[in-house]
């Protein structure tokens, strides 16, 4: 398009942003003055990793529930084995009622039992650690409680996360539904105005007001679709998008016809003028190649159609 205006020394960087970012080349960003995270976007909160300890906690929090439970059980078993092994190799270990636990199979059972009692911080006191094992037992108590806490918090937040996703999805679907309905209403309104125009040859002031309001609604919904295509974190399924785009195309077509048969924006209504300009600008940015995502050819066709119709406003 630029060469049509008269630029002579144009060159195209075909790879574009995608290629640039992929190669790891420097990217410049403009931070909006009020940097408000949009809903749904994951915002990386900078966590100050002052020590490897908090790093370890982050790691635990990031694990899945199954993995956490597995880690917890594994840890208890390993500690149990260590209590038992300490009894065999060094002669000091666990005592049950002032009698040292024997390094046999029954002793192993007792050691694992002690390990569970410690990790859950139950502490019956029927089996007690002796000597340096006490330090180990305290360490296990701490680690066991921490991990168990993570498991519990995961269990609680799981349901909550499901709910959040569910709510987001329903709101999104509702919004799409509303856009579709509105576009349909806009289309029938355009039709009615067109008919009036054909019958009477001109638009009475009342009808003009109605057209203004319809065009305003149309502009709003076009903006919604535009945003959806350009910066939505939730990508609608193609079927829903297809019907949306189809509705947009017929609305635009009818608006172009309305505009073509007798220019609507002949200066009678500044509000209409500005709305039409905004619609044209928005619609021009919708085309198969210029939206960030890659859609099915049918969808791209619809988008291209929208762009082409928008040009007819100029």
């Amino acid at each position, binding site marked *: 398009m*630029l060469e049509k205006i008269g630029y002579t020394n144009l*060159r195209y*960087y075909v790879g574009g*942003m995608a*290629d640039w970012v992929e190669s790891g080349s420097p990217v410049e960003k403009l931070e909006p003055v009020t940097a408000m995270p949009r809903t749904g976007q994951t915002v990386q909160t900078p966590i100050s990793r002052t020590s490897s300890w908090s790093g370890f906690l982050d790691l635990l929090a990031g694990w899945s529930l199954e993995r956490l439970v597995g880690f917890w059980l594994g840890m208890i078993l390993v500690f149990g084995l260590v209590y038992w092994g300490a009894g065999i190799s060094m002669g000091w270990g666990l005592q049950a009622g002032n009698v040292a636990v024997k390094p046999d199979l029954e002793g192993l059972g007792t050691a694992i039992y002690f390990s569970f009692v410690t990790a859950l911080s139950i502490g019956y006191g029927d089996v007690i650690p002796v000597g340096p094992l006490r330090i180990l037992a305290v360490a296990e108590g701490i680690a066991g409680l921490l991990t168990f806490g993570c498991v519990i918090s995961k269990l609680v937040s799981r349901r909550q996360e499901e709910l959040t996703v569910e709510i987001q999805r329903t709101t999104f679907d509702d919004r799409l539904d509303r856009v579709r309905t509105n576009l349909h209403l806009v289309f029938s309104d355009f039709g009615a105005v067109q008919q009036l125009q054909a019958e009477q040859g001109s638009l009475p002031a009342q009808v003009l007001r109605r057209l203004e309001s319809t065009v305003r609604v149309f502009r709003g919904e076009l903006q919604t679709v535009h945003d959806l295509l350009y910066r939505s974190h939730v990508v609608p399924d193609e079927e829903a998008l297809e019907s949306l785009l189809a509705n947009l195309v017929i609305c635009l077509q009818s608006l172009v016809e309305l505009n073509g048969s007798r220019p609507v924006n002949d200066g009678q209504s500044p509000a209409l003028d500005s709305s039409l300009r905004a619609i044209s600008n928005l619609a021009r940015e919708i085309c198969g*190649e210029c939206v960030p995502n890659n859609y099915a050819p049918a969808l791209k066709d619809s988008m291209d159609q929208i762009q*082409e119709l928008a040009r007819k406003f100029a």
Partner: protein
Amino acid sequence: MAQAESKPDSHHAYRVISREEILARLQDPALWLVNVMPKETFEAGHLPRSINLPVAEIEKCARQVLPDMAREIAVYCAGPT
């Protein structure tokens, strides 16, 4: 497919510029970098030093933003087009 003006059939006749060349000439004021994506997308990330000229505003604003018609201009958007 409905062909828009911005991507005519003679696409391959365009002179292209490679990433390497742009990288090498990032500091070269003789080369203008023009980003034709919408403002929001531009703000979210663009090549250093590039100018934003959304496709929709080309006709309206090109002359003000890029006054020198003979200047070497590298145009890019989101990805391969």
